[in-house]
């Protein structure tokens, strides 16, 4: 099997790497704060955090142009923020405030910011793979050079929509990148126990005539380079790619899940591969000053503090929102 190993990051410029560092720190601090806000009951409902998986969101977003499109899952905070969506409306959306990204009408699992190319977070497994195909088809038809990037988990590779979308994207040669975040656990079940192949996405690639691509999802540099290749292939008319990034979520599946089904030694092994300290060390070794990284950490901390307060201060949604925007005319009337 041909797999792409993490390449040496020699071709990456320092500015790009510092930006990816900042993105990862921001995602980690945002998600950590989001968890605290649950415990404080500011955030109701459910939420699915990306702690441990930040390198993927940071690396892929770095490889995209502002006009490209992201399609995310219910574990979508990181992918939304990585495209440049400010923290305040995302925190506010989690808290159900009117200054939320969707004024509180979507919630944690449906973050969308069209102006940032975040074309939705989808909470039914697999649904957004065909939808990303449609956006890619639109770009192809209209002759723009936009690319759709579609993130999903390992569990998605066992649902029908995954296979329909892969076949469809290949036969129409669509500019779409399918990006599997394999965090080893399909909700509370080990993915390998319910999947016919070892690498749930990569081992299926050959069924659609695609190259089998595996990348270390905890290495932002490696992610960035694989993403650049796939995005530019799609942009150049080379059709879709399917990429499997190996990673690990540090917490449970969702807010309600402490993740205790996972062996301690497995968690310990993956904590050794935590993308943030790894990347920080790499930058220090590359000659970046500790003070510079500490300044980034501190600026993110201040950003999170400010955004938290702004979100908390946001107004409660008014009743006028309830019957708004079912239809394109802005209303909800189904009869005259």
């Amino acid at each position: 099997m041909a797999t792409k190993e993490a390449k040496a990051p020699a071709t990456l410029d320092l500015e790009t790497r510092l930006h990816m560092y900042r993105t990862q720190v921001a995602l980690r601090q945002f998600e950590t704060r989001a968890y605290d806000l649950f415990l404080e009951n500011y955030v109701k409902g459910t939420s699915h955090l990306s702690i441990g998986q930040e390198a993927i969101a940071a690396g892929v977003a770095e490889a995209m142009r502002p006009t490209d499109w992201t399609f995310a899952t219910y574990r979508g905070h990181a992918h939304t923020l990585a495209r440049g969506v400010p923290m305040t409306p995302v925190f506010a959306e989690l808290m159900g405030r009117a200054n939320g990204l969707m004024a509180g009408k979507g919630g944690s699992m449906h973050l969308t910011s069209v102006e940032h190319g975040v074309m939705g977070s989808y909470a039914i497994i697999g649904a957004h793979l065909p939808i990303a195909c449609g956006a890619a088809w639109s770009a192809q038809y209209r002759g723009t050079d936009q690319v759709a990037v579609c993130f999903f988990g390992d569990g998605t590779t066992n649902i029908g929509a995954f296979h329909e979308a892969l076949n469809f994207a290949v036969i129409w040669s669509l500019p779409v990148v399918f990006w599997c975040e394999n965090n080893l656990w399909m909700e509370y079940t080990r993915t390998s126990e319910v999947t016919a192949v070892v690498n749930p996405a990569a081992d299926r690639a050959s069924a659609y005539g695609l190259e089998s691509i595996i990348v270390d999802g905890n290495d932002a540099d490696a992610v960035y380079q694989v993403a650049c290749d796939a995005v530019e292939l799609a942009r150049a008319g080379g059709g879709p790619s399917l990429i499997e990034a190996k990673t690990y979520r540090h917490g449970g599946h969702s807010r309600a899940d402490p993740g205790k089904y996972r062996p301690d030694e497995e968690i310990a092994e993956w904590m050794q591969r935590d993308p943030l300290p790894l990347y920080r060390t790499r930058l220090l070794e590359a000659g970046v000053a500790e003070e510079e990284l500490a300044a980034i950490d501190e600026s993110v901390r201040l950003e999170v503090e400010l955004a938290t307060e702004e979100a908390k201060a946001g107004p409660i949604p008014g009743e006028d929102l309830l019957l708004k925007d079912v239809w394109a005319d802005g209303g909800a009337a189904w009869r005259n």
Partner: protein
Amino acid sequence: MAQLTYREAIARGIAQEMRRDPSVVMLGEDVGAAGGVFKGTVGLLEEFGDVRVRDTPISEQAILGAAMGAAMTGLRPIAEIMFADFFAVCWDIVANEIAKSRYMTNGQLSFPLVIRSGNGGGLRFGAQHSQAVENWAMMIPGLKVVVPANALDVVGLMAASVRDNDPVIFLEAKGLYATKMEVPDGEIVDTLGSAKVVRKGTNATIVALGMMVPRALQAAEELAANGIDCTVVDVRSLVPLDTATILSEVSATGRLFTVEENPRLCGWGGELASIVAEELFYDLDGPIVRITTPHIPLPAADVLEDLAIPSVERIVTTVHKSMNS
């Protein structure tokens, strides 16, 4: 002015809109080279080419997902789901994704798309290729639902559906594909959410949809010969629902009969009965009566299928009995 079949009217309506607007594209199984399994898209590939008229694999989720993704990024796709029963394999895309995403995103996304589908019975195809599913679509917030009953309405409502900025489920009555009528030349654009009074009477109002409309009209003629003069209303669009026309016509006669091809439970007539009971109770001279397919999967044998779907005879008998009781 030309004689046009219901099936020819589909291609006519789509072609009219594709000529006008290059963002209108079409996709589905066998819609291109084959011209559609019901021959509803004959000639479109030849006129508009395979970039705009695209054959797809048997992948209903991919078809509707692609339509959704295209609609939210600037196109106006017309997707075909060959038989309406097949909505069951892509209902997530319809009911969870297309229908909800405008609301969930606080209006950030729009879905100007049309999903066409051959709906209902009459062709002896059996239970998995014959069900009338208009009530499935009607009960989902965020979907518009259109069911034309003749070739002229097919053209005009197709145009209105394509031009609408919301997702429209466009259900074609399979039993009417071969029916013909005179359709004027030139551009035809109708209005969604407008019912049509197709016969004026004084004793009772029969409200029908799709394939039930010509049956209700014929039943009304037979009832008239027996001294019961009926108004017949063609609903045409379940969402938006033209309650103003329906309430006005029921008020005028004091009686409401619905004729529905969908199975009994939660059929569209139930909602209509509820509206009339709430808003017109004191104008009614007798009970509201629903004439529907029984709550069964549709049988294949011609005799059994004919017994299941409301027939002219059943409409006549039911109205006659109720009016004389």
